[in-house]
């Protein structure tokens, strides 16, 4: 084995191909060589995802602190508190692993493990750079949806296995939220899928000579909102609404078992950022940076990976930004917003894109012309939606003001409750229209 060649192949992000070549030349069974390199690849990818969480938590705390005019962690690990999360993790590891009496041992202990597993499994189809992908399945996008739907099971396992009614109620809320927001998420991901004519991640990136964010901004926005809800982050962090339900489904968990839920949440959030990057921002594409060659090293792959991570972390920063900005919504608002607004809008959007894209294809319109037509149709749809919301908000407001002028005495007690609900709803709609 030639170390310089190994270094060269590593810099062009293809060390496994080189290793396999060398091993097979040395007389190893090709299938065995493939298995060994695959296992190494899995270990590297999984460890990266787990270790980056240490950094992500630090980043989130620091950025949030800055937004709230605080300093944030600044004691452990130098001026910037870089080792704070490591210290926290060590503390969590050293805690006793408790299984409460009366808990279902299998369900209770299986839930955190499965949670982290599903969070890690999804990374298998994310392309980090040209050719650097766990497995470029022809059903890539569908695989992600399938695996992420399995994480709902973990919530139920945790909630039921804890033998605690608050945990169970928390799990019910969490499952209701995740199952509901899966619908707009799946439907909004249909749009880039239709635009790329493929579910394969490699082909979706190849189709994005113009990023899909320009072709499908509404779909991107809906996906982002659903991703917030799916990962259980503000303003949809009802899964762990400390002020309301203590801690939700993981109330009985402590130490490392609890931190595995946190781990899964952060891995999931970073994954959603990576998925957003891949599907809407063109993944590793950046003005043909992947074709750069330095000497006889294909350095472009490394640059492409850098671009991918820059985009991913930019999206992650938006996640943090939203956490620092928005208050939590109520559970009824959360479900209302999903079923009465997001789902109908996504269905209309998907049908519009399907018909429009077919018409454009039949007329031979492609490239920037196609992008501009799609953009205009999205803007028109957004305008119509906002106008409808505004009218509905005004209507509700007028009804409310009318009933207020009539005076409270004219109303039965039974009606009072209904008006209360209407009030909240109208305010929410008016607020949405005002935005």
């Amino acid at each position, binding site marked *: 084995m030639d170390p310089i060649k190994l270094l060269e192949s590593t810099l062009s992000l293809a060390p496994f191909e080189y290793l396999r070549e060398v091993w097979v030349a040395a007389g190893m069974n090709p299938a065995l060589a493939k298995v060994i390199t695959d296992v190494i690849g899995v270990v590297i990818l999984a460890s990266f995802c787990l270790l980056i969480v240490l950094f992500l938590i630090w980043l989130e705390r620091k950025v949030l602190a800055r937004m709230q005019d605080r300093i944030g962690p600044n004691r452990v690990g130098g001026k910037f508190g870089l080792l704070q999360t490591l210290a926290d993790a060590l503390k969590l590891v050293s805690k006793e692993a408790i299984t409460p009496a009366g808990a*279902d041992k*299998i*369900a209770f202990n299986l839930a955190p493990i499965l949670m982290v597993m599903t969070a890690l499994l999804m990374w298998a189809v994310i392309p980090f750079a040209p050719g650097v992908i766990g497995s470029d*399945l*022809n*059903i890539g996008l*569908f*695989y992600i*949806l*399938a*695996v992420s*739907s*399995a994480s*709902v*099971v973990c919530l*139920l*396992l945790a909630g*039921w296995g804890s*033998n605690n009614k608050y945990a*169970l109620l928390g799990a*019910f809320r969490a*499952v209701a939220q995740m*199952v509901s927001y*899966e619908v707009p998420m799946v439907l909004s991901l249909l749009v880039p899928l239709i635009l790329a004519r493929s*579910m394969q991640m490699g082909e979706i990136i190849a189709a994005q000579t113009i990023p899909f964010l320009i072709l499908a901004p509404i779909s991107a926005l809906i996906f982002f909102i659903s991703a917030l809800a799916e990962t259980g982050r503000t303003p949809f962090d009802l899964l762990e609404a400390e002020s309301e339900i203590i801690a939700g489904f993981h109330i009985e968990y402590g130490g490392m078992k609890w931190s595995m839920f946190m781990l899964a949440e952060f891995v999931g959030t970073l994954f959603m950022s990576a998925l957003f990057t891949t599907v809407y921002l063109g993944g590793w594409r950046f003005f043909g940076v992947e074709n750069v060659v330095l000497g006889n090293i294909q350095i472009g792959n490394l640059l492409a990976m850098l671009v991918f991570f820059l985009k991913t972390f930019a999206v992650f920063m938006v996640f943090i930004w939203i956490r620092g900005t928005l208050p939590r919504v109520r559970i009824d608002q959360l479900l209302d917003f999903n079923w009465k607004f997001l789902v109908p809008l996504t269905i209309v959007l998907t049908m519009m894109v399907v018909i429009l894209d077919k018409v454009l294809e039949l007329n031979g319109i492609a490239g920037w012309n196609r992008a501009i037509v799609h953009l205009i149709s999205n803007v028109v749809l957004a305008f119509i939606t906002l106008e409808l919301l505004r009218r509905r908000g005004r209507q509700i407001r007028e009804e409310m003001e009318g009933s207020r002028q009539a005076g409270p005495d004219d109303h039965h007690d039974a009606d009072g409750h209904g008006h209360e609900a209407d009030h909240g709803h109208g305010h929410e709609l008016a607020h949405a229209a005002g935005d």
Partner: protein
Amino acid sequence: MTAQQIIFIVISAATIVSALIVVTNRNLFHAALALMASFLGVAGLYVLLDAGFFAAAQLLIYIGAISILVIFAIMLTRRLMSASEPSFNSQWVMGLVASVLVFGLFLYVIIQAWGGAVAQTFPVLQAPMEAPGIADSIRALGAALVDPNGYVLPFEVASVLLLGALIGAIVVAQPEKKS
């Protein structure tokens, strides 16, 4: 025995064992979990057959939706934390008859296939990993579903059935009008 055959046997055994747990376990929640494991095993068999789309659909629909619904139904209707409970209806006779009939059907199909085209029915046993056209199988599947010469009629019938179920759900869930 190839590695694929070993994997096939392990997955099938796990599927059958968890299916047995479903019907023998008296704890309803554990039975539901075993049902999920059994569904997962079937998804694994699909993967072995190179039907990745079906495996993902199995995971999404059977584990992500149907099992969750089953668990919700159990949690909202039965006593929640009771460790075990007696069987509360006597439909096991009908269940037995139905499963024997289905088993007979499967047996018949397998015996039919065994004589001639074993390779067609059991790609696992022949292991044609790099079969031509398999990479583009979902595109072919999608085209076949809307092809007049393919499966457009069953597809439409299934859609109408689902629409009917949807409307039925709305009717059932609608609050009764105050008179």
